[in-house]
């Protein structure tokens, strides 16, 4: 078995981070705006992967360790592709961006920064985010930017499974035992204030007409999907107002700092090193 196929990132003919890197190496032109947009996509995937990675060896059952790891691996793949592409605008690599940006240079959303909590909260966050991401990538495949479209096409197939996974668990926790229902509902309450930020348009999206997906357009199909899941699971739609966040994603939750401290500590102890 060759070491390459065994890394499992993606055998087959899918569009991989390595393909984006090769394209960037050939000198593809990426505007600052497109790069900024790609950062948002990449950072959301990266921060969520970082959160999910914690579960591996701690999941409720071994089969679930494997499932959550698969999802985290998919997300790291998406993050690497988007960050590599974004980096082309500034001559930076995926690792330059992941490990050497400060907190205020990240463009992740409050939602993915939320701590794991219990399995109920993690599933609540997964459900919301994968349903959002599914709507987003379904449209990004038609982007005028061929690279973003190609990354989205690969990612969409994977996110389809992430959304299904979260849905299946929401049904089981929502309609399982009294305790699971209570915990699932609590998880949804806990992440709900940060849902709204995902769907806010800003100037950047306005300038990238035809390239970026307008988040506000995703809200209705997102709501419809969740309504279906909640109805089947016997869960109430949380009635909670959105928190003040930042539509341009320059501001972050308090949680991000801790997450980055852990993620970046080793790389920053060895400036200039390769791994």
């Amino acid at each position: 078995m060759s070491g390459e196929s065994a890394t499992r990132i993606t055998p087959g003919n899918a569009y991989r981070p390595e393909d984006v890197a090769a394209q960037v190496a050939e000198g593809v032109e990426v505007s600052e705006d497109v790069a900024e947009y790609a950062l948002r996509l990449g950072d959301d995937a990266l921060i969520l992967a970082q959160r999910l990675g914690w579960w591996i060896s701690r999941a409720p059952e071994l089969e679930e360790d494997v499932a959550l790891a698969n999802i985290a691996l998919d997300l790291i793949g998406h993050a690497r592709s988007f960050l590599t592409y974004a980096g082309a605008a500034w001559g930076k690599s995926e690792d330059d961006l992941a490990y050497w940006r400060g907190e205020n240079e990240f463009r992740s959303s409050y939602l993915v920064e939320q701590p794991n909590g219990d399995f109920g909260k993690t599933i609540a966050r997964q459900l919301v985010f994968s349903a959002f991401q599914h709507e987003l990538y379904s449209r990004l495949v038609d982007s005028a930017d061929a690279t973003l479209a190609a990354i989205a096409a690969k990612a969409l197939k994977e996110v389809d499974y992430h959304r299904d996974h979260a849905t299946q668990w929401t049904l089981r926790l929502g309609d399982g035992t009294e305790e699971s229902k209570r915990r699932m509902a609590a998880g949804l309450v806990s992440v709900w204030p940060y849902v709204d930020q995902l769907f806010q348009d800003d100037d950047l999206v306005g300038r990238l007409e035809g390239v970026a997906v307008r988040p506000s357009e995703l809200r209705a199909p997102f709501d419809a999907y969740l309504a279906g899941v909640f109805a089947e699971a016997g869960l109430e739609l949380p009635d909670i107002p959105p928190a003040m966040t930042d539509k341009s994603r320059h501001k972050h939750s308090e949680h991000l700092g801790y997450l980055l401290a852990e993620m970046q500590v080793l790389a920053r102890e060895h400036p200039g090193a390769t791994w």
Partner: protein
Amino acid sequence: MATGDQTAMAKPVETVETPAAEGHDKQAWPLWEVFVRSSRGLSHVHAGSLHAPDSEMAVRNARDLYTRRNEGVSLWVVPASAIVASDPDAKGEFFESPKGKDYRHATYYTKSEGVKHL
């Protein structure tokens, strides 16, 4: 990697009732056997087993566990308890009949050797 082995499990399972089964969790998820079709045109082949609360999760867990490296294009999951095996005690006897009936194999017919397109 258990088994159509669990197939044959009827027997060992019965032997577990006491002390080993003590502390056996009644809420434990049941066992499923997993069969993977590695590519179109091939049969589903037994790959192993796993635990899952129900068939929907079983097929998803099977996807996560047994096709991590592109091993399959289709999956079957079957409750291990639904598999009926040939009587394990019969051993050889059950499969005795076909032995000695060499005339069922093409290699039995030696006189036509060398004749083309036969």
